[in-house]
């Protein structure tokens, strides 16, 4: 009996040791995850840790994470955090502050683009995450059409201004209208000025944010007062509804980014406002009819900020190992190699690094994109905010509700949630 007990104890102890040697991470099934995977053997060589990455689709992540975060000891040593969840996770106290670790190992937090650091790095001066990759939205446009002299002449004729990479929102609106046409003369448009993704939920919120910013609107002011019924915001929503109903492919009311991107890669649209990390796909001649013909620029007025960060949950079984991994994966060398593989960079120096630029000529043009991006409202009820406001925006974009009315309803829903979160009276 006693011997059995000792045996079991020994086994448990061994399992404990074995566990300590393996770090588990929950990640999303995206290229950036693959890039990390390809480098793991080097981490093992350097530290002796095995790393086990569980990659699942975005829609399952939040549901899978929460129980592990609530538990005293969870299944994951390291997690990646979407900016959506930052307020929720930090407010619930699920993330471990990283400042001590960073100080101890001399990590220069200033290496990150400040806006990214503000989004998935620090909250109220405390560092909870190191930024992993950004998904700032940019404006992808058809370079070949802009450079076509015939188009240029026709545009000038119609609007009295030059056709070029849009610098102002108004210019972009004219271009959306200009390029929307019926090329085969069957009475239905078949080439579109842009492609919107107006599906209810986060698809519409992500993209329509750019229309809000383009018009100079903002979600809230410095005191968290909601600004969704301001003239700029109403105009932004009206512009988005117009774009969806007039200048985008039919059905855009139900598109998310995959369907929208497909229209662009089929060569059926002049432009798309989308995540900058999709640019490579759109510009790839092997997979896209628009391959080699597109450029990317910042959305006039600033695109939507989006990013992921590395975090250590308080429920992490091995916090030291977790930090060792984050410190390694975010070290300049490894970050650079990931950047060369296509990672959407978060460290300022990488955008102009010679090797990175050699591999990705568009890299320098991505830096202002990130630097000028505008943050999305992040508070405890961000997910519900996306739901409620997204519904109103979608009603407007599908022509079921007047933009002004929808904006008022969105304003009210936003205010309710801010109140519930104690951010306003």
């Amino acid at each position, binding site marked *: 009996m006693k011997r059995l007990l000792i045996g079991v104890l020994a086994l448990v102890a061994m399992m404990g040791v074995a566990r300590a040697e393996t770090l588990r991470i929950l990640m999303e099934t995206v290229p950036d995850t693959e890039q990390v995977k390809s480098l793991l053997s080097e981490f093992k060589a350097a530290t002796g840790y095995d790393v086990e990455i569980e990659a699942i689709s975005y829609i399952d992540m939040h549901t899978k994470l929460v129980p592990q975060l609530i538990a005293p000891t969870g299944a994951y040593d390291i997690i990646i955090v979407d900016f959506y969840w930052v307020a929720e996770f930090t*407010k619930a106290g699920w993330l471990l502050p990283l400042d001590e670790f960073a100080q101890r190992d001399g990590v220069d937090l200033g290496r990150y683009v400040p806006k990214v650091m503000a989004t998935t790095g620090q909250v109220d001066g405390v560092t909870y995450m190191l930024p992993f990759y950004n998904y700032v939205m940019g404006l992808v446009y058809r370079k070949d059409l802009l450079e076509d002299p015939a188009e240029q002449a026709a545009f000038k004729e119609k609007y009295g201004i030059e056709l070029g990479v849009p610098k102002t929102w108004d210019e972009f609106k004219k271009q959306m209208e200009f390029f929307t046409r019926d090329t085969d003369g069957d009475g239905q448009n078949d080439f579109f000025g842009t492609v919107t993704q107006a*599906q*209810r939920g986060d698809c519409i919120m992500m993209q329509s944010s750019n229309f809000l910013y383009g018009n100079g609107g903002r979600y809230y002011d410095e005191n968290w007062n909601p600004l969704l019924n301001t003239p700029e915001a109403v105009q932004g929503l009206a512009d988005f509804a117009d774009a969806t109903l007039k200048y985008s492919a*039919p059905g855009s009311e139900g598109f998310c980014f995959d369907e929208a991107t497909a229209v662009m890669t089929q060569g059926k649209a002049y432009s798309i406002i989308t995540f900058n990390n999709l640019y490579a796909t759109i510009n790839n001649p092997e997979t896209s009819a628009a391959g080699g013909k597109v450029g990317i620029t910042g959305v006039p007025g600033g695109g939507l900020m989006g990013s992921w960060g590395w975090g250590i949950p308080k429920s992490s079984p091995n916090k030291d190992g977790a930090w060792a991994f984050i410190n390694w994966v975010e070290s300049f060398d490894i970050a650079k190699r990931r950047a060369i593989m296509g990672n959407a960079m978060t460290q300022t120096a990488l955008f102009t690094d010679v090797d990175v630029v050699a591999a990705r000529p568009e890299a320098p043009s991505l830096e202002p994109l990130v630097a000028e991006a505008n943050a999305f409202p992040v508070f405890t009820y961000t997910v519900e905010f996306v739901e409620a406001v997204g519904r109103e925006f979608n*009603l407007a974009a599908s022509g079921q509700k007047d933009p002004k009315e929808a904006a008022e309803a969105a304003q009210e829903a936003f205010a309710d949630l801010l109140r519930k979160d104690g951010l306003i009276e």
Partner: protein
Amino acid sequence: MAAGALARRDQRFGLLLTAPGLAALLLVVLFPLGFAVFTSLFDYTLVHPNHDTFVGFDKYVEAWNADYLPDALWTTVKFVVASVVIEFVIGFSVALALNRVTRFKNVYYIILLAPLLMNPVVVAQLWRMILHSELGIMNYVLGMIGIGKINFLGDPVAAFWTVVLVDIWHQVSFMAILLLAGLAALPREPYEAARMDGASAVQTFVHITLPLMRPVIAVALLLRLIFAIKTFDIVFIMTKGGPGTATDLISYFIYRSAFFGLDVGRASAMSVALLLIVLALTIYLYRYMKSLA
């Protein structure tokens, strides 16, 4: 007297035999249910996951007053009626046709079962691709045969019917197979008697098949009804309830309350309310069917 005692002893013995099963059932079914009811009386959120704040029926009032709840309820009613009725008609027709088939029965079964075995998320994603308004094959084919493109997921009315039809595509075989099993189990003799009595095909269907199938039909309708009320994945993947609120089904509505609104208390209140509605509906239908039989 002795017989009575014996019967009582038998009863007690039977109870003893079924006790473990009953206990397991209670644990598995009633515990979560009880937990949901309990939670619905508290301000239990994912941010503060505890039962510290008792709020009585506040969450129910809150749930009732939730924005767009009437839309979701109405959409759900329309969806359930449309999908169950159409599935029943198609499913019964298919079952009747297949019941006559003697050759390659297994092949038909496999074809029938295929959609049913597919993960709903995959089904929804597949259809999203097929129904892409610009690039999907459906509109390509419709364009070729001159019907013109349909804005399947963008137009509110079209989107509702698209969701209904995709659900039918996915679930109709359940109905068909259940009804087919029922048909296959029907006694052959009354049909021969009816032929001798001079019944036409239609008369046979009305006077023999339908009445004999009534219990199976009741079960099939009831099951599908309950499943239809719980429909979630298709909407979640295909439309997120949009455009606007055109496809906002109650299950998705509740899901959002819990996981987007982080308000488990309110979501529990809604679930409990929904459960009571479904239960009432089930009992009513069951009674009704029984009264017919």
